[in-house]
């Protein structure tokens, strides 16, 4: 389409302003993490730039806080929760897409509805349940709880994905002597890799970013995941924590940022899959 000077302005001015608004806090996060304390807490030096960059905050994060433990916890919790959600989600998604059985429609709707139930409504009873299970104040509590909001979404998204793969392919394999599950595993599952990948990305980052359950269910520093560890521990124990806080926030954001930057496309299409295909 032809775009004149006015058209160009209409596009680029809002684009630049919005990008500035959306990214400015990250600029602030990055430069803060590289500033030495005297520079951070000085009224006479311009705060808009780093004049004497330092890696002290990053070093202290590893030497003086439990940052490494939180990092390991985050990977363990997000990794296991994602694995569970993918396994259960693939099973249920396949069943809802391929197998006709009584109540399958109802189960499908129920599963989607539960995905929308926010943790804010459930954290109090979840505290009681985890307490009864004897898992309170352990990271295992999160491994058990996170799949509850991941699995419904994965099942729903994967059911939609499996429906786009022609069932005839499986029928051929079964004529050649494959069992139902054998055909599913050899034919349909490999074709569904992009869908499974989207689910994996969603599950991993949702677990990585989760805060309310982590706050409710863990209290010891060595059981906490990154976001909670950084916010709850640093904010309360250090008088001038901003350098370390921003360094921690930056490091904790990098894994999800990398994951997403590769998969933006998948993610956007997955998110609206049900809607766009309608």
């Amino acid at each position, binding site marked *: 389409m032809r775009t004149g000077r006015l058209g160009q302005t209409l596009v680029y001015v809002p684009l630049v302003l919005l990008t500035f608004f959306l990214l400015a806090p*990250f600029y602030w996060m990055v430069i803060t993490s590289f500033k030495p304390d005297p520079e951070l807490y000085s009224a006479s030096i311009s705060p*808009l730039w780093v004049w004497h960059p330092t890696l002290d905050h990053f070093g202290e994060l590893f030497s003086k806080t439990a940052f490494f433990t939180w990092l390991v916890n985050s990977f363990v919790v997000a990794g296991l929760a994602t694995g569970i959600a993918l396994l259960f989600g693939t099973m249920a998604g396949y069943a*809802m897409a391929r197998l006709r059985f009584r109540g399958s429609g109802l189960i499908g709707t129920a599963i989607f509805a539960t995905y929308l139930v926010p943790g804010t409504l459930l954290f109090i009873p979840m505290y009681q349940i985890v307490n009864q299970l004897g898992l309170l104040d352990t990271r295992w509590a999160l491994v058990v709880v996170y799949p509850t909001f991941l699995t419904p979404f994965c099942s729903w998204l994967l059911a939609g994905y499996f429906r786009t793969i022609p069932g005839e392919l499986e029928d051929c394999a079964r004529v050649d002597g494959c069992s139902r599950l054998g055909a599913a595993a050899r034919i349909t599952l490999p074709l569904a890799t992009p869908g499974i990948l989207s689910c994996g990305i969603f599950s991993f980052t949702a677990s990585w970013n989760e805060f*309310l359950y982590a706050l409710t269910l863990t209290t010891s520093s060595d059981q906490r995941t990154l976001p909670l560890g950084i916010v709850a521990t640093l904010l309360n124990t250090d008088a001038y924590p901003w350098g370390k806080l921003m360094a921690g*926030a930056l490091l904790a954001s990098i894994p999800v940022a990398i994951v997403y930057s590769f998969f933006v496309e998948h993610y956007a299409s997955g998110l609206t899959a049900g*809607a766009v295909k309608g």
Partner: protein
Amino acid sequence: MLGYLLVAPVVVVVVGFLAYPFYLALSTSLTDKVIGGEPHFVGFKNYETIWQNSVYRQAIRNTIVFTLGSIAIKLPLGFVLALVLNERIRFRKAFRSAVLLPWIVPAVLSAMAWLWMFNGNFSVLNYIIVHLGLGRGVRWVTDPNVAMFSVTLVNAWRGVPFYGITLLAGMQAIPSELYEATAIDGAGRLQRFRHVTLPLVMPILVITLLLSTIATVSDFNVIYSLTGGGPFNSTQVLATYSYATALGAGRMGEGAAISLTMFPVLLALLVLEVRYLTRRQA
């Protein structure tokens, strides 16, 4: 048979960790349960207690203001973002990935960056305001009259990319023939928007709006990490107040009652969303 076997784990998860907790929340809200204590049935006493509590009524008002305010910012900005990203621009891929950052970074961590920008002594926002001669600076999160604006702004900031990227997906699904046809008919930019873009992204807009409303009504992370509901409960919403009551003060029964008052609204949104999606899939 195989079908039931395959959905069994999900059903167990849904029943055991969603239906049962929900039942537990309901039954707890009818007891005087405190952390570490035995629950006794008290009927609707908790609901009466919270209704007479002015902080609770303020939390309801704040939840409404927070939700409507945030959507009023993020929906139009997200729409504009989608529109400009849908144009042929330089570095489109880079822009599209970059603007997604606020939404993918853990909310409490980006909220920390904002909290530091809102800092009482070293606020960069105030530095800019003062140096541009616009005033003497603002107490962003410590002034009860300003704090609600600040938390709403940060929530909206996180939500803009979500609207932007889902609406963009909707716009890119519009066949270019439609635009070409309107161009032949001599339609201008504004008419193209009104007669092609807007009606065709409307379904996605409705879905996005419903999802976003559910998430905003129940948002805990942004407010908890910026103000904790303060100062003087000026940013106290139902999510933060139920947390403070149930786990801060240990009054689980009362906290459950507070959080459950969000349920009717969330249920209505959820039913709308499910009906809208299933009707479109049919």
